[in-house]
């Protein structure tokens, strides 16, 4: 089996890592929108003139890197493991169940935009 067998693992890991990265602000780098500067890890601009700090790109990078690492571990496992675990029903459904769950977590985390949170 080719490297493609771990693609579902990547998708599951990415979704989980992304929501963790966003909630804990584990950004691999920060982009300052107005200044157009990149800074490693989480960076807070000293003055507002640099514009808002954007962490979204950094969260994507963190999640992608982590998901690649987890996929590499999965790839190192014997190929028949894939057929018995994440590619076998019902575990293959984690490919969409986990992202859907993560999306609901985002709705919960961002509820403050829509309702008053005590």
């Amino acid at each position, binding site marked *: 089996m080719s490297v*493609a*067998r771990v*693609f*579902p693992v*990547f*998708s*599951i890991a*990415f*979704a989980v890592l*992304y*929501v963790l990265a*966003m909630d804990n602000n584990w950004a691999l780098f920060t*982009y300052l*929108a*107005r200044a*157009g500067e990149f800074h490693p890890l989480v960076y807070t601009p000293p003055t507002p003139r640099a*514009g*808002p700090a*954007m962490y*979204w*790109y950094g*969260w*994507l990078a963190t*999640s*992608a890197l982590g*998901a690649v690492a987890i996929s590499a571990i999965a790839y190192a496992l014997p190929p028949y493991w894939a057929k018995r675990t994440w*590619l076998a*029903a019902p575990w*293959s*459904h984690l*490919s*969409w169940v986990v*992202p*859907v769950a*993560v*999306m609901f977590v*985002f*709705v919960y985390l*961002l509820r*403050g*935009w*829509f309702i008053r949170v005590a």
Partner: protein
Amino acid sequence: MTTTLLIFHGLCAVFMLGALTHQTLSVWWPAPAAAGPRSMFASFRAVRAAAYANTIVVLYVMTATLGSIIYPAYRIGIRVFLEDLRLGSANGVFELKEHFVAVGLGLLPAYWYYWRQPLAPEHALTRKAVTGLLAAIVWYNFIVGHVLNSIRGFGP
């Protein structure tokens, strides 16, 4: 420049929305194998769904890349404007959009895997669900992007 990129971003989204809607309807509601003439709606569903997969992946990556390039302009110009108007819900739906885009990006490898030829019959349900989820993400993002652009839009 930002306006040009926004237009390309929107065009890519439209192409992707069409392809993904064709594919999603064809797997969730397959057209009957009728020999005679089909209705327009049945014809819409009677497509070779697997043929769309690679194009959808490319269009999703292109749309997300273009969106990420113009995102700073939104962050500086539009979000502040929405905050000034106290349009919390508008900001909230965009926050969800950015995270749903990321979830969709992460979903692409699994989506591509389950649409690989020859299609694995044991993954038919997973394939349907992953496709439906990606379609839901793209529809949500398209509508939110369009509405927010209508609220403020780019430009001076």
